[in-house]
């Protein structure tokens, strides 16, 4: 494998003979471009994001148009995914639901990962009382059950007549507030594994500043686990949003989200299984797409897997 890699390296450098400066990022982009997994997941995510931004590109049906006479209709040529108990077109609701679900999933992941990574790196790198302080605060937040905490948060800031984005933001805030400790711990432990390596010592011996050590040596070598966990969490956050909706404190009708749709389906599990199937399918595909993307990115940033 190594030999092949060397041949490949030698070969690819033939293409640009003079020393063109290539960094980890440039190499990673190259590796990504060659990875079919990346293109598949990127295409899926692109479609979902498009769905979230311009749902009207995908359907002309109004998702709030209830045709009660056709309620519970199975998938047919007119309503591709069938209709639910209210007579809503499930296809239209799945398309329009993408926005809230993806907003919640992506932003919660973004916030928890950023907070978690920053605190984890700080704690592990500086150690001593900084580490103790951050770790204990993390422990306190870790002790609060995520669901219970989110219920508390949502009841403390009830959102009856708030505009759409405010409601979504509240859900994001509630989950982020309680979701970061797991990522802080993960990042802290993976940084602590990187720090004793000789290359960190060597960097110090060659005069690197603390910031440069963190940026060039610690972060690139400790990012693998958190990327994987963050992408898996993304799905979990969307599911959690669904749970909150189910409990009547998350996103509420008239907001359309996959979580809301899945919860609506519970009442007709046996009579109208398509009500559950389609929103769940889209939720699963989104999670799958992000997990595949996470895998591809992690591999791209690890030279040994190229």
């Amino acid at each position, binding site marked *: 494998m190594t030999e092949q890699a060397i041949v490949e390296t030698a070969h690819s*450098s033939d293409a640009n003979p003079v020393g063109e400066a*290539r960094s980890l990022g440039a190499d990673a982009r190259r590796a990504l471009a060659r990875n079919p997994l990346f293109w598949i997941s990127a295409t899926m995510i692109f479609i979902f994001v498009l769905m979230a931004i311009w749902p009207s590109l995908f359907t002309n049906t109004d998702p709030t148009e209830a045709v009660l006479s056709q309620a519970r209709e199975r998938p047919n040529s007119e309503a591709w995914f069938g209709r639910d108990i209210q007579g809503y077109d499930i296809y239209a609701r799945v398309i329009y639901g993408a926005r809230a679900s993806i907003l919640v999933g992506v932003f919660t992941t973004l916030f928890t990962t950023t907070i978690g990574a920053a605190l984890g790196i700080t704690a592990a790198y500086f150690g001593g009382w900084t580490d103790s302080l951050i770790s204990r605060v993390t422990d306190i937040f870790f002790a609060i059950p995520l669901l219970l905490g989110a219920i508390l948060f949502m009841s403390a800031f009830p959102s009856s007549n708030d505009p759409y984005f405010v409601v979504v933001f509240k859900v994001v805030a509630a989950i982020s507030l309680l979701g970061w400790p797991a990522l802080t711990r993960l990042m802290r432990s993976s940084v602590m594994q990187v720090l004793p390596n*000789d290359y960190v010592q060597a960097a110090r011996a060659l*005069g690197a500043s603390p910031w440069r050590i963190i940026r060039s040596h610690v972060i690139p070598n400790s990012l693998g686990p958190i990327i994987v966990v963050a992408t898996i969490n993304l799905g979990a956050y969307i599911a959690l949003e669904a749970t909150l909706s189910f409990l009547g404190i998350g996103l509420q009708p008239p907001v359309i989200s996959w979580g809301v749709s899945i919860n609506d389906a519970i009442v007709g599990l046996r009579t109208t299984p398509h009500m559950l199937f389609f929103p769940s399918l889209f939720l699963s595909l989104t999670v799958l797409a992000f997990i595949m993307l996470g895998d591809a990115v992690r591999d791209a940033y690890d030279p040994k897997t190229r």
Partner: protein
Amino acid sequence: MSATTVDTPQEKRGSGSKSKYVPQDGCLLEVDDLYVEFHTEEGVAKAINGVSFDLSQGETLAILGESGSGKSVTAQAIMGILDMPPAKIPSGQVRYCGRDLLTMDPNERRHTRGPEISMIFQDALSALNPVFPVGWQIAEMFRQHRGMNKSDALERAVGLMERVSIPAARERVKAYPHQFSGGMRQRIMIAMAIALDPAVLIADEPTTALDVTVQAQIMQLLADLQQERQMGLILITHDLGVVADVADRACVMYAGRLVEKSEILDLYAAPAHPYTRGLIDSIPRVDQKGQTLAAIGGLPPNLTRIPPGCPFHPRCYLARDICSGERPELRELVPGRFAACHFSEEVLGA
């Protein structure tokens, strides 16, 4: 002075008064009565107990000793990369060109690492960052300390890789550490360490992780670079065989102390300390084929409980009553030869 392809005139060492560090009477580095302790749960491990030596321009000093004798800790203390805590330096000085590094402002000291004092590590695979191409890592030195742009820095990296005899350097500059063999990785590490033309280079067991055939090449490379750039080179090793040809002087360490300090050839010809003698006798020799290899019995002492008197006395073939009661100081036997043993004359005469 180093006239390699990678140097531009304005960056040469000694080109006028640009460097604020000027060797005094040719003396680059002085370690003066240095102590290092590690505060652990089992107690205080006294890793270094009053070590003094100096290093001149163009000189190669070998620091010899077995594992746990304090060789690497000495190097780390000089470099200032000890983790404090648990390490502590209760007293001593490390003077570089007359300036004490230990009391220097941390930021100022950081700027001495790389351009003034630099270091090579034992295991080059773990000492190179696995996620960056080697050329990028060498180039980083120029970008960081000299503010060069990417392509100039990479060009210099190629030059350095050619200087340390990496075949097809221009193509290999984009390869990652794991794509190189052990010897080649050590060459890359050396290239990084000499990138900024340091005045002092510390090599901590530079050949230990390598094949015997490659060891000789790496030692030769270090010797050549040292000649070419007139660096002060500190070679830390437990392998007396590899330094015989390249070192000028040697310090032998045991339990955090210097037990012998002398010209390397004198040391090999007639050791003045029983420990040095034991080390030399334990080198396999072609002319003593078929005989049992002499070994020093026992283990080096636990540094939290160093024996009273001479720390070596429990393992010494010469040990007498005085050895367990009174610690011999390092004394000058003949000009230029120091040993810390009550019976050095006897050892020398033997």
